[in-house]
């Protein structure tokens, strides 16, 4: 089965064309301001080098760091209306109470806490204050906000208040994009609300991004199904993925770590993936990213996602250096590196310029950075080294040196020798590890429904069976399917030992040419 894997970073767009497990071609090109052109260029580039009459592409898998970069950089976020339906409970802890100040300011939410929500047993806490919801919606509308996140008390068990509030909001703001917390999260009001509001702040970006990808594929003459990669290393159809950008948060690092394992053959190692805007450090355990336990922070926000245990650093090839203030980052020139970095004739000093000045890499025009003071360059590189060392150190679980695989377009920023690392590995195609990981992404099958009239074991077994069938329909090879999560919440107020069961299985895409991707 022939697939294109694409990774759209803030700085570079990478593409690989693979057949089975064979890499046919790989390219790395700058991301363009309209995103689409970079994808068109990358696809055009890998397809152009294929012999005429070659079999068509079966699927395209795209991974993007767009959404997480927006959160990390506190940029391109949409202002949101936050409606929490839980009063009089939780009054002392309003929405976004545990967000970092700068992120809360960037999203600049208009928050409302209204009466309503349910108890765990399905009784209303107090009646939903519909008037208050309507009033909130009107004020949100008047402020020109289009993205709304609604979180109600115990909504994972009783969705009524959220759906009713959504209807009210839609009647006031017909074009509203609404995120309902029960579609994203589970029990844990603050964490679920956090994810809901992050998602709301990113939805506009999600839609725009997927539209642009679709356009790019059309323009490239590709008519295969197209997927976005998710946090857990699986893919879902792009149109479905667009509504929930938070599910794609960690896809970039997940892909690059799986790609790094594939490229080095190492199953146990630390991976640092240096992009243009940020770097992520993670650990490979048995060839897969080590998962974070419990609470996962995204841009400093507490969530209950299942995600790889990653430590992000605001360090990438496009990271802006301000010599006056003496700061490295956190902002990046991103895809504008090819016009704004000094070596490309621009006027912004970036980490790439410093690396070129020091002779670590040959990019652009070195003459343009000759004026940089050597002492300053040395000092900056030393600070970057310390930054990387500190972060590698934070991810370590023992004092012993670890093998560190450096991947990503900015991997030249990682020194050859690093305190705390037994060796630093670089490999061929390391620059396109995430595109490779995306191309190798697995498919999943998911079940999230209420089962009743059977015992817990029977309900779980039934759910797993359905999830497996769905994974196979999506193209998974039956023998490769493993259960990623299986959990249930008893629903006390329904008869017949009712429980909400959530099961997620994943499997490799079947390489047999006769199978069809969904």
């Amino acid at each position, binding site marked *: 089965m022939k697939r294109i894997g694409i990774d759209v970073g803030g700085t570079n767009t990478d593409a690989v064309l693979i057949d089975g497990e064979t890499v046919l071609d790989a390219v790395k090109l700058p991301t363009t301001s309209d995103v689409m052109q970079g994808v068109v260029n990358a696809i055009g580039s890998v397809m152009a080098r294929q012999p005429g009459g070659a079999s068509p592409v079966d699927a395209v898998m795209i991974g993007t760091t767009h959404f997480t970069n927006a959160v990390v950089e506190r940029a391109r976020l949409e202002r949101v209306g936050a409606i929490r339906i*839980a009063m*009089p*409970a*939780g*009054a*002392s*802890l309003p929405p976004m*109470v*545990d967000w970092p100040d700068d992120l809360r300011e960037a999203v600049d939410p208009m928050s409302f806490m209204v009466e309503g929500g349910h*108890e*765990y*047993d399905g*009784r209303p*806490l*107090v009646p939903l204050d519909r008037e208050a919801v309507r009033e909130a919606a009107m004020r949100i509308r008047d402020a020109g906000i289009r993205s709304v996140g609604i979180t109600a*008390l*115990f909504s994972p068990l009783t969705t009524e208040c959220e759906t009713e509030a959504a209807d009210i909001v839609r009647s006031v703001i017909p074009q509203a994009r609404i995120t309902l917390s029960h579609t994203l999260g589970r*029990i*844990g*009001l*603050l964490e679920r609300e956090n994810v809901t509001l992050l998602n709301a702040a990113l939805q506009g970006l999600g839609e725009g991004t997927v539209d642009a990808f679709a356009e790019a594929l059309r323009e490239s003459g590709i008519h295969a199904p197209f997927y976005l990669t998710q946090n857990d290393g699986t893919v879902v159809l792009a149109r479905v993925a667009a509504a929930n950008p938070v599910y794609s948060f960690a896809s970039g690092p997940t892909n690059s770590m799986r790609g790094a394992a594939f490229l080095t053959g190492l199953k146990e190692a630390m991976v640092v993936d240096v992009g243009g805007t940020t770097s992520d450090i993670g650990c490979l355990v048995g060839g897969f990213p080590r*998962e974070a*336990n*419990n609470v996962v922070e995204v841009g400093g926000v507490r969530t209950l996602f*299942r995600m790889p245990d990653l430590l992000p650093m605001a360090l990438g090839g496009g990271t802006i250096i301000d010599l006056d203030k003496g700061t490295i980052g956190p902002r990046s020139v991103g895809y504008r590196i090819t016009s704004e970095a000094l070596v490309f004739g621009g006027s912004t000093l970036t980490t790439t310029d410093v690396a070129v000045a020091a002779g670590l890499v040959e990019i652009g025009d070195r003459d343009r950075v000759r004026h940089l003071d050597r002492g300053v360059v040395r000092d900056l590189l030393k600070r970057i080294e310390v930054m990387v060392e500190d972060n590698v*150190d934070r991810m*370590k*679980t*023992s*004092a012993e040196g670890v093998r560190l695989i450096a991947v990503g377009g900015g991997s030249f920023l990682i020194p050859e020798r690093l305190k705390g690392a037994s060796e630093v590995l670089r490999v061929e195609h390391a620059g396109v590890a995430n595109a490779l990981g995306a191309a190798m992404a697995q498919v999943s099958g998911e079940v999230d429904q209420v089962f009743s009239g059977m015992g*817990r074991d029977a309900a779980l077994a039934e759910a797993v069976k359905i999830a497996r069938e769905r994974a196979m329909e999506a193209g998974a090879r039956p023998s490769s399917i493993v259960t*990623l*999560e*299986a*959990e*249930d*919440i*008893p629903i*006390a107020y329904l008869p017949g030992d009712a429980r909400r069961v959530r099961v997620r299985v994943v499997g490799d895409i079947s390489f047999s040419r006769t199978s069809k991707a969904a």
Partner: protein
Amino acid sequence: MIRDFAADEIDPLAIGAWILGTGGGGSPYLAQLNLKKLYRDGRRCKLIDPLALDDGDAVAVVSKMGAPLVGQERLVDPAHLARAVRLMEEYTGKPFRAVMSVEIGGGNALSPFLAGAVLDIPVVDADAMGRAYPEAQMTSFAIGDLQMYPLTLVDCRDNEAIVARAASWKWMERISRKICTEVGSTSATCKAPRTGKEVKEWGVLHTVTKATSLGRAVLGARAAHADPVAAVLDHEGGVELFRGKVVDVDRTTTGGFLRGAAKIEGLDGDRGSTLELSFQNEWAVAFRDGAPIAMTPDLICLLDTVSGEAIGTETVRYGQRVTAVALPAPAVLQTPKGLEHVGPRAFGYDIEFKSVFAS
């Protein structure tokens, strides 16, 4: 002795309390957020040594009561805890000298701080369990046969209840639990007021200091890249029970409690074995391949193998890599009378108590 409780003690206290919560008591996170917010707003708490209390001082015993899972949704509001204390003062007509926690384990370690910050009265460096337990009769005060009434209970909707009298600690538990369940399995309560003398005689003393110092040990180990699990064992004189990966969690919420069991498949030295941790809000008994190896009142704690962070019965999830440890229980819980209240039989297990630490 009375001293300021510093802002930088909040995090260590929360970490230590969560470990001593033995899986229950609810995560201190929400209480921690509230307390930090109160400190940001200029409120401060004072910590008073129980030995500095006068025999006649009135001490309020506050706690958030209910199922931890519910608490994660309904959140925690200092105003309600403070209201429960005020309601008790209104009922008894006697002002409180200080406020203390019923359990140092979990979120309730911070409950008296929330009430104390709002009401501006000091917090006593003691509790009545030295850990966390789900029921009223499972306290050192109950073991000491102290008076179990009155009790005040408030919820977020302006419902307030007073249990004026109860025939026994179990009756107090049954009646107050019923009210708690009725208002949604979460409420703020002020238990039977204690005198300074009773606290000194029957309280588990200096547990705030102990939890804070345990939290500091974990933070210190993390910063030094030492093993935080080992730091917990060192600090408390505990033993490691099992290391593995969570493969199943079975939960039911009945009668306001979270009951069930977590199954852990062995890794490293425990490969090939399975540990089943059964719980009733807190971890109660650990069965290794079917045989009980640790049980209440020994503290059974489930820790994240890497970070040493405690994992609660409501947050334990499939796939987590965990280490189960046992820590010694306060002496009062291990007396024959204590075991009647909190031994395995009190939780419905027909097992004779045998401490992990018995020589």
